[in-house]
């Protein structure tokens, strides 16, 4: 083993021969500060004016905790569902040529383009107890609209493209020969997928998951129509924030927002680290 030079603490990435490193780095920092950091700092500052005791009381209030739980719980489930089915959709779109493939491909992007409120209303109409799908599910004892299940359905809808679009290009890159190699070595189709193809897709799937999850946590428009917004049952955190705002209770709104922000940031950071790790392994 040759010794590698010790990793010397924090260091800037070595600039390349192409000029503009300083300029682009400076621009990025200023831009991120203006667009993301200052508004977020405002949020923290606003909630800080509340005082620690009040902050803690608002944040640990039963209704707030429930709302946060519903928001993150449903977003997590929706993201997981999308990871499975989004990957399958991406697989089908890349691997099979069938009539109407282009149309299906375009359809995947629809949730991006559609105003989310429209999606929410459409889904509610469908899944309401007297809607097309709702009336079919009702006899089976499955209620979708106005339940947490409805929230999950809405979130699955809006975050599907994130998984499909991040995984698709990676599936396109898969070398046919790698699959053939696995087959000649005696691997069944299932083993080829789980042991050869899936690990190669893992970094992209994790990215898709992170994006879908983040989208789900922040989603508002489509959810409020289908959720029914019953406090402690189907009330999501973003809605609670809006409710507090409408009551002109700005400190409470920002306090909830700050907590959401902290949790989201922590989760995304973990996902990012996970991704770096898997990239390094599978790179």
């Amino acid at each position, binding site marked *: 083993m040759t010794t590698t030079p010790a990793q010397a603490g924090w260091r800037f990435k070595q600039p390349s021969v192409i000029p503009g490193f300083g300029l682009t780095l400076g621009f990025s920092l200023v831009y991120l500060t203006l667009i993301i950091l200052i508004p977020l700092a405002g949020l923290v500052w606003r909630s800080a004016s509340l005082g620690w005791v009040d902050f803690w009381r608002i944040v640990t209030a039963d209704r707030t905790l429930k709302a946060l739980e519903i928001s993150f719980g449903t977003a997590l489930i929706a993201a997981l569902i999308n990871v499975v089915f989004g990957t399958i959709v991406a697989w089908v779109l890349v691997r099979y040529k069938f009539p109407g493939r282009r149309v299906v491909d375009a359809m995947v992007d629809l949730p991006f383009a559609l105003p989310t409120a429209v999606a929410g209303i459409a889904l509610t109409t469908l899944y309401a107890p007297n809607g097309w799908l709702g009336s079919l599910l009702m006899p089976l004892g499955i209620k979708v609209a106005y339940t947490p299940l409805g929230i999950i359905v809405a979130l699955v809808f809006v975050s599907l493209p994130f998984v499909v679009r991040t995984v698709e290009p990676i599936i396109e890159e898969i070398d046919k020969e790698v699959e053939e190699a696995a*087959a000649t*070595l005696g691997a069944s189709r299932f083993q080829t997928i789980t042991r050869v193809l899936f690990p190669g897709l893992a970094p992209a799937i994790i990215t898709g998951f992170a994006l879908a999850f983040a989208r789900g946590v922040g989603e508002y428009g489509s959810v409020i129509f289908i959720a029914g917004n019953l406090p402690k049952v189907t009330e999501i955190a973003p809605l609670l924030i809006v409710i507090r705002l409408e009551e002109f209770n700005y400190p409470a709104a920002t306090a909830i927002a700050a907590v959401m922000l902290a949790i989201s940031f922590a989760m995304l950071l973990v996902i990012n680290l996970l991704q770096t790790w898997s990239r390094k392994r599978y*790179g």
Partner: protein
Amino acid sequence: MEVRVANVRKEFDRFPALRDVSLDIRSGELIALLGPSGSGKTTLLRLIAGLERPTTGKIFFGDEDASSKTIQERNVGFVFQHYALFRHMTVADNIGFGLKVRPGATRPSKEEIRGRASELLNLVQLSGLEKRYPAQLSGGQRQRVALARAMAIEPKVLLLDEPFGALDAQVRRELRRWLRDIHDTTGHTTVFVTHDQEEALELADRVVVMSQGQIEQIGTADEVYDTPNSPFVFGFIGESSSLPVRIADGQVWIADRPIGLSAPNHPAGDALLYFRPHDIELLDGCSGCIAGTVVASRRVAGTRRVELEIGGERQRVEIELPVDHIATQKSRIAFRPSRWKLFPVKAPAN
């Protein structure tokens, strides 16, 4: 393991890639499938592997009909031109993959798999690289790992698709010798595809020359080089020159002159005379020879290639002379092929 390809035909979208190919591969043999691109050599290899299914015809491994078996059941080792290593697995995991995916009953223990992997790494001279990932290896090293991976499953046949095609000339030559050594050590029945005749002639016990979906000739390097059985093989393997000639009275004629070659067994009429540029003797006078005007002369390594124009038809042929030969100064050269072959003018119908 003997492999027998029996009357195999393969069509892709009605386009025949292989037409009625039959081939017997002896156990332990190292065979090269040689041909230009589009000759069907890779298709034949993939058919043997089971990566394609023949449109008609059968493939036998020993006495067993392999045509109905899946790729997984055939137990062949396949090495791809672009390695096709699993990039998320270490070298050792890549090599052990074929053993790890076996069903429980026949799967060796983890220690055995690890042992086998380092044994094979030793064989391919890459000991100590178990923990590396494919991205950390050079092209030549990757191809050796790919070969080790293919051999790990103790395949009945080893199939290599242009194994050195993506490597540079130096590494190619090195790996060629190395593959020959490995084959001599392990004794696997091995078939490899190449478009590089030097590679095929140097490496293989027998060479299968293919063209347009058919086998032109099967033989040892000496056989295909010295006694090509078709104009294609003559032209494809090694250098060659050809001249249209006429056979009459058991003699070979160019225009109205006999050139001093007798062909008593060849039917009279038009024919093509093939010879190698170096298989000639120079003549001084010309009573029964081929004479031509020098139009170009090139230095090629240790010899000089001279291009001649022959007769009124201005047919061009190339001959090879020693660099400092006196004849290279002349503007007109007379010669006669010392080894040659006649083929009927009309190519046999495909």
